[in-house]
């Protein structure tokens, strides 16, 4: 017992010693402000690596690949980029604390990352309060660039409104009028459903919603949900489910014939993150947003895919592409800004034109939302795997919120 106690207290002592050493180290580093040409530009990054590894790890691999390339090419103005990457704990409390640590201890020039919408919004608000630049990586919620947007927060990825808009464009000619909606019971699912109702009502004459189901995220009662939808005899289904919920829904729906003779429009299902686990059960004929990386023939994109596969021996996910593009956007921003002053970086980002491996993208100044698009196509099964066919890349520009809507929604 006595021995054990000694061990425990020495562990604690070591913990605090380490903490204290960390404090001293960071304080020491923080003083050396005046930048030499070869000093790295420090950038903070935070994401849910522990909680949502399936999505965040490919993204991290993507930006690390780009980082390597950028630094091999001499960095920005001769200075290499250095990314300090941290876990955000997947909760707002942890994320804000980590963000603060990156900014105040690690003295990073700005931060990027996050996966969950609520975490992204919390960090965005922190950035606003702290006058720090934040570039959101994966959160999809419209609020981030609309009602809760702020001038310090930018986003590259197409938001929910834009993705739903593209999907509606792809299915409006199908002739389906009676729609059923199934979406997970949280903000992303609900706002996607609302966006769909609004956009489809405008694009499809005679559009009506005949059934709605909102299973709890991760807890779908698939049999009951499928029966409830079937009961309404819709012409078509708009799906927002993903992950384990989607797999169950697809299996139940296929066995019960829910999808036969019906148009199904589905968000994200074509992204490798979500499609790969479905294997040969990817639902054929669904119209989906996604990322047909293996079929994109443009040279820059092929180069990215080859480099990614060579480095990680894994196929890219959408997150990989996103991380890769994001890091290049950061490079372009820093080059244009010419300094790591927050105002200079914001000025550089607003209206920034980037040539990404997926095509040109512009950052709109009105809402700090980039025009990055998405691929929309039809799912099929090919060699035991899901595959998008008849796909087309939709540029994000035409599908963004109107500038009037932005003005009405944003409070800054």
């Amino acid at each position, binding site marked *: 017992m006595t021995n054990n106690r000694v061990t425990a207290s020495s562990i604690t002592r070591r913990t605090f010693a380490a903490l204290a050493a960390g404090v001293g180290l960071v304080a020491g580093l923080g003083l050396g402000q005046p930048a030499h040409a070869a000093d790295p530009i420090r950038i903070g990054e935070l994401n849910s690596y*522990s909680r949502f590894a399936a999505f965040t790890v490919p993204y991290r691999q993507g930006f690390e690949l780009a980082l390597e390339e950028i630094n091999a090419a001499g960095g920005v103005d001769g200075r290499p980029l250095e990314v300090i990457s941290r*876990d955000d704990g997947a909760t707002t409390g942890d994320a804000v604390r980590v963000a603060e640590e990156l900014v105040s201890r690690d003295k990073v020039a700005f931060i990027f990352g996050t996966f969950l919408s609520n975490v992204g919004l*919390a960090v965005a608000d922190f950035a606003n*309060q702290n006058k720090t630049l934040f570039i959101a990586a994966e959160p999809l919620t419209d609020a981030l660039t609309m009602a809760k947007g702020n001038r310090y927060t930018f986003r590259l990825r197409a938001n929910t409104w834009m993705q739903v808009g593209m999907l509606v464009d792809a299915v409006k000619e199908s002739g389906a009028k009676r729609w059923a909606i199934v979406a997970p019971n949280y903000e992303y699912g609900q706002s996607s459903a609302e966006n769909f109702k609004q956009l489809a009502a405008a694009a499809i004459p005679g559009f009506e919603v005949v059934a709605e189901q909102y299973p709890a995220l*991760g807890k779908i009662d698939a*049999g*009951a949900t499928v029966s409830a939808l079937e*009961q309404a005899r819709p012409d078509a289904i708009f799906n927002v489910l993903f992950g*384990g919920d989607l797999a169950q829904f697809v299996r139940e729906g296929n066995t019960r014939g829910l999808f036969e003779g019906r148009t199904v429009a589905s968000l994200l299902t074509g992204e490798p993150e979500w499609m790969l686990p479905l294997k040969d059960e990817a639902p054929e004929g669904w119209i989906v947003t996604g990322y047909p990386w293996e079929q994109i023939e443009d040279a820059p994109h092929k180069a990215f895919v080859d480099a990614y596969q060579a480095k990680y021996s894994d196929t890219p996910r959408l997150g990989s592409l996103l991380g890769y593009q994001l890091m290049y956007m950061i490079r372009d921003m820093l080059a244009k800004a010419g300094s790591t002053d927050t105002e200079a970086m914001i000025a550089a980002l607003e209206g920034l034109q980037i040539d990404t491996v997926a095509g040109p993208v512009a950052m709109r100044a009105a809402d700090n939302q980039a025009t990055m698009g998405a691929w929309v196509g039809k799912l099929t099964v090919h060699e035991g795997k899901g595959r998008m066919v008849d796909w087309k890349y939709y540029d994000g520009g035409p599908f963004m919120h109107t500038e009037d809507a932005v003005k009405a929604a944003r409070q800054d």
Partner: protein
Amino acid sequence: MDLSFLLIQTLNGLASASALFIAACGLTIIFGVTRIVNFAHGAFYMIGAYLGVTLAVRFLDFSYGAPSFWAAIVLAAVLTGLLGAAMEMLLLRRIYRAPELFQLLATFAVVLIVEDAVIWLFGAQDILGPRAPGLKGAVMIAGERFPAYELLLVAAGPAVLAAIWLLLNRTRFGILVRAATHDRQMLAALGVNQAVLFTATVFLGCALAGLAGALQVPKQPATPHMDVNIIAEAFVVTVIGGMGSVTGAFLAAVLIGLLQAFGILVFPKITLVLVFLVMAVVLVVRPWGLLGTPEPEIRGEAALLVPLRRWDRKATIGVAVVFTLLALYPLVADAFALKLAIEAMVFALFALSLNLLLGHGGVISFGHAAWFGLGAYASALAVRHLGAPMELALLAAPLGAGLCALAAGWFIVRLSGVYLAMLTLAVAQLAYAVTFQWVEVTGGDNGLIGIWPSQWASDRIAYYYLTLALTGIAVAFLIRLVFTPFGHTLRAARDSALRAEAIGIDVRRQRLAAFAIAGSAAGLAGGLYVFSKGNIDPSVLSIPTSVDALAMALLGGIRTVTGPVVGAAGLHLLKDFVMPLTDYWRTLLGLTIIALVLLFPGGIVGTLVDFLRRRGAGEGAP
């Protein structure tokens, strides 16, 4: 709604009921015999699913057919059971003599480790398993297609129920299990080797969890989050049925399965709250669940009612020294260190408020996050919707949370033991669901942002002193409260409700007052928290927050006055320390908790005080 649809939807409901029952019945058996609230039950369910997928793929590759598939499922269940038995022998057995709920904390640490281990072993990506050979298609029922496998599940629930009934009623093991569940004295009288019985029971319970997980293989992919998705529901089924009652769990699962299947037709968005709503109603009407017996105590609750150290001059000096050091801290600390310290103080108040119930009231709360979160929301809503300044909003936090705690407490204190604990959980989940779904007011799961302090307190140092002052006052009040007639008689009521009532102490009233006070204090902590991070979202009311509070109080020592403060500060700093070290920081956190649980069975402060007392140096700070 035609008749055939009614029939199909009933079958849908029964199929989910079966799955739910099999997942929950192991939990109820383990609780019945060992009185352990096995928080890791969901983790074993997840292990069963991953083993099931892995084995089924291998076996089917080797020889495609139903026998291979079912062999894989059974083997997955048995292996899961063995892992459970290992947990019992290596971990739980060592802490049976520790104060109440330490097993809960240990199983919580197991959850953290298993979640990481699953990702490490099987990868982060979901794994969709093969469908059951021979049961891939559908059967025509009343003109509708119904999946054959679902039909099998409909039958599986009653089959497992029957098998367990036979096991419990026709074998010596079963007789011992029932004896342990209903009359522990009798068990002692029978001269049973308790260690073997406990191990066997945990094996059985975990094997059933594994079976439930493996049976999901043809339905849903194995994912690293399936444990959290099942554990709350499994607890609910167990409680509605009556803790320890297998038949009760079956009835409860059927009730929930059917209510869910038909409820979503009328209220599609009810999916979030339905189970907790049902549990709250059942517990208010039937305090011991459908088929439960009165007041099964959580393991060891009555044990170790150690006397509280008397508050003396040294204790006062100790507190004054700590307070002075904290007051001087901004002289040496940078902004981030101050932020950490602010959060540590906030959680210290949160944990201490829980301990008024847990340690001094003997009232186990699994839902203390409710008051913390409601306080935070009271503040945030006052700012957002009433334009209140921070000062008023901070007043709204303890008031709002206290009033809610008083109202909910009125129902809660009517129960006792684990049922009371589960009603607190239900209340917290209902509060969570309200903040989650009342989007217009609360901002839904995106939460509310921009809740920053008033100008004068927006400087980090100013807010630090504000937090120090308010938590200081509240902590001092809570510590002081323990030594007042209220605290004294609250502890008396904890030690013996029978005696308390016989000398005119209204046990429920004491506990209700404790609820209101603890709720207010937690609410104040929540209010301070929201202004320290600028935003609020429903996750602050979720189960992990309640578990954090429990862990902080237990690690510090619930039979001490100041232990929870130490536990809270320690755990928070520890988490901040391990998070940057590795993606697998949850494993580190879990291992640390296990180490602490094994090294400090009375909590850190509790064990320390005990040690000093035994050395005869007895005058140290409490």
